[in-house]
């Protein structure tokens, strides 16, 4: 991999890469994004989490100039998206949720033709395509049409295509949805590599492990609003504590015990979740006295935060 393929030696923007203030998007009667404000700093990986319909995709579509915003302020690289959409779009790379590779073209042609949309010269486009095919371990499939590629290869090719203009900001809409574990890890490694080179990344996901692993900071959205924002570890500590006890088929005695101690918990009927600040004494006590069907002590994760904040009912 050659160094010039990535923008690490460009001067850093002094201000935030993305700054949204009271950003709104309305479709007819539906308020898809409802007055949200957030900022993404240069060089950080920022995640947007939320259930289906939370407004994640709508938010990032406004950022990459695909959907016009209804109200508020949105700046990318310090430029107003409404006044400078082309300048901004020339400096970002986008991986859309759906596969938008060109099925008429081979992997290599996909990269070359896409580079030309950015007015990159033909010679440079060829060079970039070769570099990126190598970086994404796709060299051996450069002459394959996208229909002949596996899901993981398609995603890597989409990622390669998003890097063809040497973007300063990479925007990913659910980058690993539908991939098998091997392919997901491969995509994550590439993204970590890119982040290490100083690329700013904005991603949406509903995989909590993905968010915890990749994101420096993240926000959880639901129904167009931001519920919480912060570093993953901090969000976990603030919202659910350090550890969790899950009790299968809890009995009335345990519920009584929890009420008496006033422990933060969630009762799902067949399952009881107890949020702990610190594990030692309490787990042993509960385990000794109330664990008929078995109980588990585990570390709290982003998933606990997510479910606690957005609820457990299905979003369809």
């Amino acid at each position, binding site marked *: 991999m050659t160094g010039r393929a990535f923008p690490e030696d460009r001067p850093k923007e002094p201000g935030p890469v993305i700054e949204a203030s009271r950003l709104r998007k309305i*479709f007819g009667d539906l308020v898809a994004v409802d007055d949200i404000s957030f900022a993404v700093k240069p060089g950080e990986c920022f995640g947007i989490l939320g259930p289906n319909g939370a407004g994640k995709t709508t938010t990032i579509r406004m950022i*990459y*100039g*695909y*959907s*016009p915003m209804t109200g508020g302020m949105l700046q990318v690289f310090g430029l107003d998206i409404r006044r400078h*959409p*082309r300048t901004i*779009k*020339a400096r*970002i790379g*986008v991986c*859309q949720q*759906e*596969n*938008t*590779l*060109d*099925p*008429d*073209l081979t992997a290599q*042609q996909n990269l070359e*033709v*896409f580079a*030309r*949309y*950015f*007015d990159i010269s033909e010679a440079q486009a060829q060079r970039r395509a070769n570099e990126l095919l190598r970086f994404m371990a796709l060299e051996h499939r450069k002459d394959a049409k996208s229909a002949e590629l596996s899901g993981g290869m398609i995603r890597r090719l989409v990622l390669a*295509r998003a890097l063809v*203009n040497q973007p300063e900001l990479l925007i990913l809409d659910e980058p690993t949805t539908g991939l098998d574990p091997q392919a997901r890890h491969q995509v994550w490694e590439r993204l970590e590599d890119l982040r290490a080179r100083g690329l700013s990344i904005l991603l949406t996901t509903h995989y909590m492990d993905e968010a915890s692993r990749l994101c420096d900071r993240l926000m959880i959205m639901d129904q167009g609003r931001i519920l919480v924002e912060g570093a993953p570890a901090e969000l976990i500590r603030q919202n659910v504590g350090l550890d969790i006890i899950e009790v299968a088929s809890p009995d009335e005695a345990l519920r009584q015990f929890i009420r008496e101690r006033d422990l933060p918990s969630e009762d799902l009927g067949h399952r009881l979740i107890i949020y702990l600040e610190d594990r030692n004494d309490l787990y042993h006590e509960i385990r000794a006295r109330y664990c008929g069907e078995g109980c588990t002590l585990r570390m709290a994760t982003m998933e606990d935060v997510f479910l606690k904040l957005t609820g457990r009912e299905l979003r369809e």
Partner: protein
Amino acid sequence: MTGGRSWDITGRFIRVWQRNFRAYSESWKIGFIPPILEPLFYLLAFGVGLAALVGNIHYRGTDISYMVFIAPALLAINIMNNAFYENTYSSYVRMYYYKTFDAMMATPLSLEEIITGEIIWGATKSLIATAIMQAVISLFGLIHYPEGLLILPLAFVGGLAFGALGMFFTGIVKSIDLFNLPIFLLVTPMFLFGGTFFPLETLPHWAQQVAFALPLTHLVNLTRAFSTGILDGSVATGLVYLAVFSLIFFPLALRKMRRRLIR
């Protein structure tokens, strides 16, 4: 023209054209077959089979053979079909199934440039197919030169008109099957009654007036004037008609596509 909003078009639309050209050159061998075979089929069926029954046709004060009469009509139909099908079915597939426009809209390309590039590509396909078909027809000595060379730029101009019309339908159809409607109600009647296989004058007066309102009639007039070398005032009428038609449907197509795609 668009209620206060201005179109965002720069020369970058050529990148969209280049994308289509590149995809086309991948499969050009297949693309070349219809314009070579189609005129042969038609000339054989109509020219050889039917011509014996029809004899000569009286056209603009002279008698011309039936083959000479229908050869320019085949070219005009070819111009119409290439651009119209390209900017309906093919553009729809790229827009809806391939999501090519979605990918393009994440680059500095504007929606207007994408649509402009598509329409100009449709016209280019009309030009390519016409050049091939015209070469085949010329082998039969059915086209008068040098006037016949004017058919090539005309193919591009006519392609723009029919491409813009096709793109307008792409902007409004709910699904790809619904292209059947404009094809059945517009393209097929034009194909049959646009002065193509028999002179317009044989139709009742009202039908002539309907035909005169439709673009293929004018395109056939023009290709026939150029292929026979008999130029008269109808050439100017036809060119003005095509220009006005394009100037109406091009912005209309842009507006409908914007309404369809910008969400």
